């Protein structure tokens, strides 16, 4: 079983990321189940997408990942990575976006809301950790809307040839093909650029 949790904020595109991952797994002939947060929380609240893949041909019963069993968490925001951390498996990989996104509540509190202390904690707490400067990659590609693909591609690259995270189970080519099957034709080139740039950056992963 391969469990991937995508954690973010409503509107960041976690649902599409989950769909792409599911398509890649399906192409391998695996059983797949995904589950989403839909409804009120999508209005800027914290959301998660669960992707469960029977990578050894096994049956997948539950749509949701149990705490402590996510092989990989793809976090689109550091605070959301902290919230999702209890889901990470004992040997799991956390791939986390570097940009902290304040909430109305954090702004109203008057306290600064910054990424660095969160990232510092996550680096020590996650068995395997990679922080991605997703904002820089998005800027290079020319759109902040593709942060979801940047992070997904980073998770694929960071798992390349490893026995943790996605365990090298999904290759870059498979990710690209799944993306092409899931996004509107007009956005394929942009998302392709997001994947390529992210992979080039993570390239030789410095995952600890």
């Amino acid at each position: 079983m391969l469990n991937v949790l995508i954690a973010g904020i409503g509107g960041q595109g976690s649902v599409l990321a989950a769909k792409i991952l599911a398509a890649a797994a399906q192409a391998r002939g695996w059983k797949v189940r995904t589950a989403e947060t839909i409804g009120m929380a999508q209005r800027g609240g914290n959301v998660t997408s669960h992707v469960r893949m029977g990578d050894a041909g096994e049956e997948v019963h539950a749509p949701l990942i149990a705490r402590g069993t996510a092989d990989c968490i793809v976090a689109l925001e550091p605070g959301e990575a902290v919230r999702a951390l209890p889901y990470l498996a004992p040997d799991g990989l956390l791939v986390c976006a570097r940009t902290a996104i304040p909430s109305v509540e954090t702004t109203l509190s008057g306290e600064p809301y910054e990424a660095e202390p969160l990232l510092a904690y996550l680096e020590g707490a996650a068995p395997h950790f990679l922080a991605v400067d997703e904002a820089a990659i998005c800027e290079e590609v020319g759109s902040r809307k593709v942060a979801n693909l940047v992070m997904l591609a980073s998770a694929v690259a960071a798992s390349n040839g490893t026995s943790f995270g996605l365990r090298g189970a999904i290759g870059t080519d498979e990710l690209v093909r799944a993306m092409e099957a899931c996004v509107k034709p007009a956005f394929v080139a942009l998302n392709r650029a997001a994947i390529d740039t992210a992979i080039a950056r993570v390239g030789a992963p410095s995952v600890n």
Partner: protein
Amino acid sequence: MRSTLLMGNEAFAWAALEAGVNVVAGYPGTPSSELVETVAKLHAAGVAHDVYVEWSDNEKAALELLVGASASGARGLFTCKQMGLNVAADALLSANYVGVRGGLVLFVADDPGPISSQTEQDTRRFANFAKVPVLDPWNPESGADMMRHAFEVSETWHTPVIVRPTTRVNHASTFFDVPSETHARPVPEGGFEKDPKWVIFPRRSYAAHGEINDRLHEIASEEAAGSFNPLYAYAGEECAPADAGAAPLGIVCGGVSGAYAREAIEMLIARGAQLPAFDFLQVGTPFPFPVRRARAFAAGKTDVLVFEELDHVIEDDLLMLAGRDKLSYRVHGKLDGSTLARGENSVEDCARRIARFLGVTDALPEEPAPDPAAPQAPARPPVLCAGCPHRGAFYAVKRALRGKKNVLCGDIGCYTLGNAKPLEAVDTCLCMGAGITMAQGVAVAEPGTKAVAFIGDSTFFASGMTGVANAVYNQHDITIVVLDNSTTAMTGGQPHPGIGRTLMGPVSDPIRIEAVLEGLGVTCIEHANPLYLKESLAAARRAVDFEGPSALIFRSPCTQIVRPEPRAVVDDDACVGCRVCVEAIGCPAMTMSADGSKMIVDAATCYGCGLCVDVCQHGAISAAVRTEGRVPFAGKAGE
């Protein structure tokens, strides 16, 4: 056939289309909305042939329309969320007595948690109360099978049938093989056949009650032998389908809890647990209860553990069976505190309780100790979007009411989020349309208090209009604020009578909210664009100062249906970091710089609505819509 990733609700739609459904009608509500949208999409794409689909004005209208279609021989599918069935209850209970001709299936989505609902009511109980069969899927695949089956049951027994998934089935996705096209079953020639049976009368109802009792008995018997109540025998690491229980221990599940429990059992086995033999029963047809199946399962049992969400429906039936058959098994579930009495079940929770039940707690993973060094995840409740027109509406009305004792009655929709800081503009929220009528109660009980009701455009048409008539008829001193954002925003942007666009393509003339209010006798009707503070404040003052029922219509589109305007810009020389803007309207695009000295507009979040320009007392914020003198979002309809 091609393999496609379908969300549960999409799979239900496909299954109904494959069953030849002719008419689909419903009212949006999370987690049910995607079914109707999928049918409309497939119809528009030329895939689903000859089907008619609509968003009805409300659930009652939808179900009554479908009862009519069924009487003409059409297969009908009704959709709503759990509370929607309360609205349609009158029609359902009577329709069951009159009976159906074309298959009539009610797709009612329950929401354990609750995740996006007012109540944790259980539609299985509702089915029992209404004496209508209910099917309870545990994943999208079983749900699609049940949908097809439900039409057959409905026509065989002339009964409405409820298919009741829960959120984790509605919004879970997996791959399905779908056909290249579907065709609705032709409506029988001749259509409606005149017959006294379509007119409900006490004498007819007495006879019908007997028919209902008889058919429920027959249906229970048939379902007990069918595939929706699977029984498995677990022995060691093996799990095999069985016809009867053999072990003294048993686990019984309803809905998605069955998936959680099976996963939990596999988790315990994988962790080396030596499980004693036990039987596992999934109850997919909870009403009428499949007694024969349960009896076969219960033979020789000493203890039974029940996992189900919402109410203890299966648990009650197992207790009844024990009493009726004088069986000596103990039932462990919600009633004795053995399982969660409310909210969602989970794999983790099932694993703990099953391990205890089977005596294998050693196999449970250790609970990780909380890390005292862990930072707090930020509070991130859902909020009104940047550029949302409701923000300005709430702010203006609250300003207009300063110094006046007031009660702000909210309603169901995105604008319930107006209760959060800093707006805090929703004092009550009950059920669809209740804001207008609750305000009248406040006005009657406290004559000196200004009662203001907020209602969205879609909710206004769904269930606000009778409340307006009541206010005018009884001359209640309230102000009705209609937040018209030209869509049903909370559930994903469905059209409604005030928009004119229908799901079948043709445009009908939009029903004007002003015309409705005028027609119902409201004489004071004010207007404002909520993105302009001064005009909104003046209109709000006129409306709340009026004695008697008054109305104020705020009109500006939901940001989900328009493209953004150029973002607002802060002049750092003029911004004094006073935080007034942040603390007045709480827009998610506004944050403070790290040193707190300046407000920062987040470029990616800001929608350029211009409201903050009016709120700033130092002239430090500018927006293109203001400098260019344009109405925000005019001519910016989304793709």
